[in-house]
């Protein structure tokens, strides 16, 4: 993992000159152009608010940054994208100032660019393969594909006006989508493009899944998610909220109600706990609970909104992924003075995005790497008073090549904290597999699917996102949704019972 490059700001004149002279650069010159950095909220200020940390590119910044693209013949960035967005294609249009053309190009493969631009791990996908980064021998110098993508989506929403993808001629087929998270939303949008009726069933009172309950406002403004959901509704996607499939109704009921296919996208909604003594204490949260209270339930605004979340000065977060970073940074914004991020491996193994790690450090999160949690210590009345950790060193690599943390004998330490947030991962939600006949699961509890079609072991029932992949990324979940929609379309047209003339309403 490299540290972010030094942020040199370009003057308006420099930006204008680059845009003006863009056609004349040869690839060598292009590769040497300085990266255009976006402004960010000051770390000391932003921990007092929930607004976004990176400020959007200006149109000139976006264009000048897009000029850096080398338009490589083999398109390594496209290969790195789970949904295969035509990256050089849209970057060239941006460089020319054709924002409308560019957003259209993205939307050919990705319906939710405002979200992907913000939450995709670009440095391990499109930007990881960027030749410009290779020229500079520094991943931080890759073309800022994600930031340009977010810029375009915001431009479309705020300036250009959103163009909805055309909806296909009505096929008469009805598809039920279970879960209104990124995978379900993508699938529903695509199904409308094919002309099928799409009804999304959501357990919560709001659509968006992890985008609304998990990812904090400062990383993904909820107004953006609401706008995307609204666009899908305008395309004719129906939403049935407060409906817990598996409890309120079963997959069999859905077929009985006249749906010809079902897409299961219920996500990874089962929090894991480390399983150390003291986890029962008051003040111990799963990251799911902590973030859901803060985000979806509005505990940031308590008592304006009714759901509380504990606010204390000292907080320990367990884990090294994006959810751990989100929890730590949320704790700061809820007024914590000391936030420890306790991770048992080293920085190299941290699964979090580089940008999130960097932002967390800037904001003052104290990283306790190679620290394994061993016990939560409590007061006599059962509240958290400290986290006991054991220092580790890196041992031999395991079968995946990751060096294992080995506890150093006797090297214990107590971190005085009042809240412990466990962000060590989530398992697949068991409600659907438990209540539906004919669905095979793996030993991890995920659904077994045919990788080409995303069809489960039950005919007409497809699945994707974290219920299949385990806890993965938003974009992978979207990729599954897209793949499944195409397969469902093929299935309906070839194999399903033709719809009746008057489908039940």
């Amino acid at each position, binding site marked *: 993992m490299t540290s972010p490059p030094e942020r040199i700001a370009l003057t308006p004149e420099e930006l204008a000159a680059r845009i003006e002279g863009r056609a004349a650069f040869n690839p060598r010159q292009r590769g040497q152009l300085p990266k255009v950095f976006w402004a960010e909220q000051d770390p000391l200020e932003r921990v007092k608010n929930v607004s976004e940390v990176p400020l959007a590119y200006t149109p000139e910044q976006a264009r000048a940054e897009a000029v850096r693209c080398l338009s490589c013949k083999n398109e390594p960035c496209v290969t790195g994208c789970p949904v295969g967005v035509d990256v050089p294609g849209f970057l060239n249009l941006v460089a020319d100032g054709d924002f409308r053309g560019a957003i259209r190009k993205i939307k050919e493969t990705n319906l939710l660019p405002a979200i992907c631009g913000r939450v995709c791990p670009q440095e391990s996908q499109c930007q990881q393969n960027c030749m410009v980064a290779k020229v500079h021998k520094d991943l931080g110098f890759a073309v800022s594909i994600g930031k340009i993508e977010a810029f375009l989506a915001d431009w479309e929403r705020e300036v250009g006006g959103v163009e909805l993808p055309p909806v296909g001629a009505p096929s008469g087929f009805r598809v039920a989508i279970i879960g209104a998270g990124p995978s379900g939303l993508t699938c529903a949008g695509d199904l409308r493009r094919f002309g099928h009726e799409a009804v999304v069933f959501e357990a919560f009172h709001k659509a968006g899944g992890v985008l609304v309950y998990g990812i904090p406002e400062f990383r993904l403004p909820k107004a953006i998610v609401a706008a995307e959901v609204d666009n899908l509704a305008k395309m004719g996607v129906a939403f049935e909220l407060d409906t817990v499939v598996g*409890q*309120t109704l079963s997959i069999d009921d859905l077929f009985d109600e006249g749906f010809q296919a079902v897409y299961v996208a219920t996500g990874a909604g089962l929090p894991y706990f480390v399983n150390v003594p003291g986890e029962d204490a008051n003040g111990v949260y799963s990251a799911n609970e902590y973030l859901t209270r803060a985000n979806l*339930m509005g505990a940031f605004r308590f008592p304006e909104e009714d759901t509380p979340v504990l606010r204390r000065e000292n907080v320990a977060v367990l884990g090294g992924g994006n959810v751990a970073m989100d929890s730590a940074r949320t704790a700061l914004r809820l007024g914590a003075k000391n936030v420890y991020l306790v991770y048992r491996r080293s920085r190299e193994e941290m699964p979090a995005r580089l940008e999130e790690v960097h932002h967390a450090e800037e904001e003052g999160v104290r990283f306790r790497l190679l620290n394994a949690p061993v016990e939560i210590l409590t007061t006599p009345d059962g509240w958290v008073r400290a986290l006991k950790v054991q220092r580790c060193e890196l041992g031999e690599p395991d079968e995946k090549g990751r060096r294992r943390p080995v506890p150093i004998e006797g090297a214990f330490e107590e971190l005085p904290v009042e809240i412990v947030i466990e962000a060590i991962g989530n398992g697949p939600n068991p*409600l659907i597999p438990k209540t539906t006949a004919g669905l095979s699961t793996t030993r991890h509890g995920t659904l077994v699917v045919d990788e080409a079609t995303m069809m489960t072991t039950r005919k007409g029932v497809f699945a994707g996102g974290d219920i299949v992949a385990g806890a993965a990324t938003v974009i992978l979940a979207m990729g599954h949704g897209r793949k499944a929609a195409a397969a469902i379309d093929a299935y309906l047209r070839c194999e399903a019972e033709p719809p009746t003339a008057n489908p039940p309403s």
Partner: protein
Amino acid sequence: MFRIIEKRPLGEHVTLYEVEAPRVAKRHRPGQFVMVRPHPRSERIPLTIAHADREKGTITLVVQAVGKTTFEMSDAFAQGDCFCDVAGPLGNPTHIAIPGRAEDFRGTVACVAGGIGAAPMLPIARAFRDAGHEVVTILGARRKDLLVFEDRLGSASRELLVCTDDGSSGRKGFVTDVLKDLIETRRAMGSDVHLAVAIGPPLMMKFCSKTTRPYAVPTLVSLNTIMVDGTGMCGGCRVMVDGVAKYVCVDGPEFDGHKVDFDGMMRRQAMYRREEAESLARYREEAR
């Protein structure tokens, strides 16, 4: 939206709501609950279903006002108004059988209800009766005016034993006293109490479990802990059962009362006491 088609006071701070929720009504089985979010700024709170009418597509909830959300429900919502969200039915239904016996065994079930625990007890008592068990219901409350569903529980039971802390109705004493006497009387007669089901305040369920333990009468308790989603996603409702963390929402809400760590559960229930008091005080201030 979930319309309130009937709202009726049952006692001091206790209100019955009959709410339109056709899908919930269709699937409901005794022992299950719903998550209710009365309005867009509310908490999501778990409420056990007292009755479901499939024909009408309604469910009945009996709610005691104790905090801001439940007071607001009774103050600000009238018959004809709608609750913003009702999701369910959630949790596992009551297993209508005697633990440790063959499925076809028919025995005596003591249904012990404390306060508004009477409401969720009703469908359970009826289900045991309909399955052919002898149902003896013990209904207790602090005072006469806090007894709810007395008639309905009476008609669902072979025998109804009422007690109040102050003796204003029925026997003066606690449900645990009545339960102990019932077990001893039955045993003296050569019969038995084969199962106790206790629903009510945590302390009452704790002592019911303590009462039945020396007699080895299997005891089911229905827990109502703090929840956010109610579908296993947050883990906020976790309670230690036999030394293992269980989720009330998806593993429960009913557990073996002899194995539940009631003290731990009550401690966790008090986790937001400060915030709850602040919220309620603020609400009362605004209401004035």
